[in-house]
């Protein structure tokens, strides 16, 4: 593992779905001293990996051994009727696989953070399929790139500089040969990085997309403006999209979380499908957590479904809105929550958090997070991609190997090993 | 037997079975529904030389029709099974589809067989036709046309009905004959299940089922012709009679035909100048139904 001079090259950054794999990490003893090439967030992630760390397992706030913590976790799970596992987006593929095993064993529900980020993207794809691309293809071929409801400047800082504003095989000059557009309801920092910013009215994404689809078909419509854009401008946008050589549409939570949710994505997918009748287009969700894409992939390999899976009947069942974490919590359904590699207390609506506070919570995370404050059992974990190896999936579906660059703190083990310990002792209890 | 002093012969009308369909025609107002119904049942008096026997059976109030508009119920009758399908196709296609605002719904009781006539007519929609339902027991086809949308039920039924019921009566003159005849037909319109296929419901040329010419199956029945009473020795026409009227009554059931016969006799007998009422038959050789005038409960 160790490379000469404690310098690690081509390290994959485990912050966002970009999984930039050109990071150079330098370590000295037990400290990471330098992150070269990484974005500001990446630097914080690597260099600050020991900040705010949870180093000791606790049960009801008291420090215990790892074995004791596991024992208590197993007790809680074994006595539950409706067990919910949530999280999994900030960990590696093997840990995810163990989580599905645990859910199956305990007859529980397993949901990942997809349900509050790109869940609607998957619902859209389930209705209409996917016309996708890879980031490399985009870089080498795309003469137009559109971001819709995405703010990479804040959430994926190197997306534009590392993948898009780069010369490629057929795009010699990324400034001249490639157009970058942004469509959003807010003039974000990203708006200043692109060639054209198109502002649309909030909650009109679906109308704008459907209008573009109709215009691309060559249909004349009755309306004079949609979402604050004149039909003339929309016609021009449609024409540009139709006449592009190779286009890629990246979309973010501005599309998945706004009015319409999965319907917006379904429409966007069909827009891209329509465009493929004339030229080549692909689309890609701007996945947030570095391995949320992987959570969907591993879940689908193992269970057939990407998230919101119930094993209560022994076989997997899929029902977003019913087995998704926010809905289950808000409806007061689960009697135990195992949270791993996510922070529902920080990211869930109040009612869900209020219910979560009433049930036993087992929290597995490398750092103190908001959920730790409410958890009965806290188990620290090693940070994948820094303190242990693994695999993760980039936003375009490409799996990448995560390197271990430093030893985890004393007694702290990877997520997958914690889950295996739980499974092992639960197997004994359940039999 | 006498009604209002008019003698009723102790005889019977001889009727036979035919294949029938009953259809509701609706339109934006009652007058137009009737106009459409008259056109649709036009040229359909006697199977001797028209393709069908058809007529208005009943006038419906708006709340009695499937679409809440004024409507008229009509019945079509043919000798052959397939004739029903052909006649519906031609008549609904040419006379209802073409009539602005008019629509057609099947209303045949005791259906023996159905034909996808509506579906075929809807092909006029040239791909713009839409199938709806079943709703309220019907599958409908909607097709765009200049007046809006033509609505036609997908299938139309065939049932066995009764044709050839009749009364023949003798009048003093044209005025008394026509006035009583028109009133008699109006009375039959109020009887559900029966209709009168001839022009305005009246027959001016009663026929006998034979002819001296080989090409003809029927010819004028000279025994009922007032102008021939001098030379036809076995004439039925009384001395003071110069006008003979026949009302031919078809219906879905023998009972409906009998009801209608009764209603017509009661009405006709109210009119001055009506001398005597009889009915036509062939001695029971032709049809399986005998409607005895004295057994109508007059």
């Amino acid at each position, binding site marked *: 593992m160790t490379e000469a001079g404690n310098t690690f090259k081509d390290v994959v950054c485990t912050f966002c779905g970009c999984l930039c794999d050109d990071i150079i990490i330098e370590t000295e003893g037990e400290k990471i001293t330098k992150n070269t090439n990484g974005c500001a967030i990446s630097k914080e992630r690597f260099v600050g990996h020991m900040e705010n760390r949870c180093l000791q397992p606790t049960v009801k706030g008291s420090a215990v051994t790892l074995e004791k913590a596991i024992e208590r976790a197993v007790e809680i799970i074994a006595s539950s009727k409706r*067990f919910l596992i949530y999280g999994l987006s900030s960990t590696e593929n093997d840990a995810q696989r163990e989580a599905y095993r645990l859910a199956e064993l*305990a007859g529980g529900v397993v949901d990942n953070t997809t349900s509050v980020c790109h869940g609607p993207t998957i619902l859209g794809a389930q209705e209409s399929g996917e016309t996708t691309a890879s980031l490399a293809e985009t870089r080498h071929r795309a003469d137009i790139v559109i971001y819709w409801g995405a703010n990479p400047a804040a959430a994926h800082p190197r997306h534009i500089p590392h993948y898009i504003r780069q010369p490629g095989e057929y795009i010699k000059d990324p400034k001249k040969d490639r157009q970058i557009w942004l469509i959003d309801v807010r003039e974000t920092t990203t708006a200043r990085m692109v060639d054209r910013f198109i502002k649309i009215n909030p909650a009109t994404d679906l109308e704008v997309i459907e209008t573009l689809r*109709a215009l691309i078909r060559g249909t004349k419509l009755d309306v004079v403006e949609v979402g604050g854009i004149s039909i003339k401008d929309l016609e021009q946008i449609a024409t540009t999209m139709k006449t592009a050589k190779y286009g890629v549409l990246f979309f973010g939570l501005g599309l998945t979380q706004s009015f319409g949710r999965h*319907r917006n994505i379904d429409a966007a997918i069909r827009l891209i499908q329509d465009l493929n009748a004339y030229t080549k287009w692909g689309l890609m969700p701007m996945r947030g957590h570095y391995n949320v894409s992987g959570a969907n992939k591993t879940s689908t390999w193992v269970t057939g479904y990407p998230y919101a899976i119930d094993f209560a009947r022994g076989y997997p069942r899929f*029902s977003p809105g019913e087995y998704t974490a926010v809905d289950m919590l808000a409806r007061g359904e689960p009697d135990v929550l195992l949270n791993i590699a996510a922070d529902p207390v920080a990211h869930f609506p109040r009612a869900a958090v209020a219910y979560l506070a009433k049930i036993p919570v087992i929290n597995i995370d490398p750092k103190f997070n908001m959920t730790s404050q409410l958890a009965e059992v806290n188990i620290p974990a090693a940070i994948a991609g820094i303190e242990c190896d693994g695999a993760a999936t980039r936003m375009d579906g490409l799996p990448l190997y995560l390197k271990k660059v430093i030893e985890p703190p004393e007694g702290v083990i990877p997520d997958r090993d914690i889950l295996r310990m739980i499974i092992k002792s639960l197997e004994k209890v359940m039999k | 037997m006498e009604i209002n002093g008019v003698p009723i012969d102790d005889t019977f009308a001889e009727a036979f079975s035919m294949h029938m369909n009953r259809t509701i025609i609706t339109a934006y107002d009652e007058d137009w529904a009737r106009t459409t119904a008259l056109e649709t049942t036009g040229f359909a008096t006697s199977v001797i030389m028209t393709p069908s026997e058809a007529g208005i059976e009943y006038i419906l109030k708006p709340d009695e029709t499937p679409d*809440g508009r004024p409507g008229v119920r009509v019945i079509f009758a043919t000798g052959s099974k397939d004739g029903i399908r052909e006649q519906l196709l031609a008549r609904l296609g040419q006379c209802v589809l073409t009539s602005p605002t008019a629509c057609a719904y099947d209303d045949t009781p005791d259906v023996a067989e159905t034909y996808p006539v509506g579906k075929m007519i809807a092909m006029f929609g040239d791909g713009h036709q839409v199938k709806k339902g079943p*709703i309220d027991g019907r599958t409908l086809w909607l097709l765009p046309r200049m007046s809006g949308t033509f609505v036609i039920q997908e299938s139309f039924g065939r049932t066995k009905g009764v044709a050839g019921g009749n009364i023949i009566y003798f009048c003093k003159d044209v005025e008394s004959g026509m006035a009583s005849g028109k009133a008699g037909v109006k009375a039959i319109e109020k009887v559900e299940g029966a209709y009168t296929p001839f022009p305005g419901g009246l027959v001016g040329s009663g026929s006998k089922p034979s002819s001296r010419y080989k090409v003809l199956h029927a010819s004028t029945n000279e025994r009922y012709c007032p102008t021939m009473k001098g030379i036809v020795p076995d004439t039925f026409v009384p001395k003071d009679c110069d006008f003979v009227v026949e009302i031919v009554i078809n219906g879905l059931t023998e009972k409906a035909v009998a009801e209608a016969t009764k209603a017509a006799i009661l009405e006709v007998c109210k009119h001055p100048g009506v001398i005597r009422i009889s009915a036509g038959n062939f001695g029971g050789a032709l049809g399986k139904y005998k409607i005895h005038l004295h057994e109508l409960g007059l």
Partner: protein
Amino acid sequence: MTVLLSLKQVPNIPIEADSITPTAFAGKTLAQIGKLVVMQGRNSCELREFFEITGESADSVEETEIVIRGDLRKVKQIGKGMNGGRIRIEGDVGMHLGAEMIAGRITVTGSVDAYAGAEMSGGNIQIEGNAGDYLCAGYRGSPDGMKGGRVFIAGNVGNEMALHMRKGFIAVKGNVGAMAATRMKGGSIIVCGELGPRACIEATKGMLFALGKVSSLPPTFKYSGSSEREFTGYYIRYLKSRRPDFLQSDISPSEKWAKFIGDFAEAESKMEIYTRLVLNSHLAS
């Protein structure tokens, strides 16, 4: 003959009671019915653990009527896949009521949660209260929603009603939420109250009658004239014959209806929306 189920107490964790169907009950004694399986979380339980079971069971499905009482909001999947007989629910009820129903009749005096009548292919559902999201919708990823049957809702309905509807009839007395009849490709819907935004997005075929106000329609729908319509009366009369209480006032057959056609984002654009011109003149231009 009627079997009466009374919920003993509201379960803390929802139960899945897809065994409550006339088909499952027919030919069984009350004791046998009590042993039918319901799921609570991962636990397989018996019906009698949750319900007091009285009344008289019948031999055939057709003769079987099930009356259920109590706060059933945490009871899911009642009447799922039902094929004949009757279920009467006195109170509110949870998700998936009558989902995948084939035949029979369900009446509910209260309100129902999401996915009632989802992917049903026949039968009749009457709900006197409100219905949640995805009424008569297709499940996730399914290209086919409701394929037949009749559904009448006396209250309001949530979002994405009739998603992927192919056939059948839905009438709503109250208001309908956003994105009703999305990707509809057949069937008929009557909305007596207000129709929510984005109705019929990506719909390719079918008919929707909006008897109340429509604040907006998708921009990809086109106005196609106002006139009296030969068949609107047909549907109105049908509704009136079944549920006269759904119509606040009489609608004359000579009333004018504005027609909208779409969705022009799609290759096939034969979805028809009819709105009463007198309430929706702002849409017609």
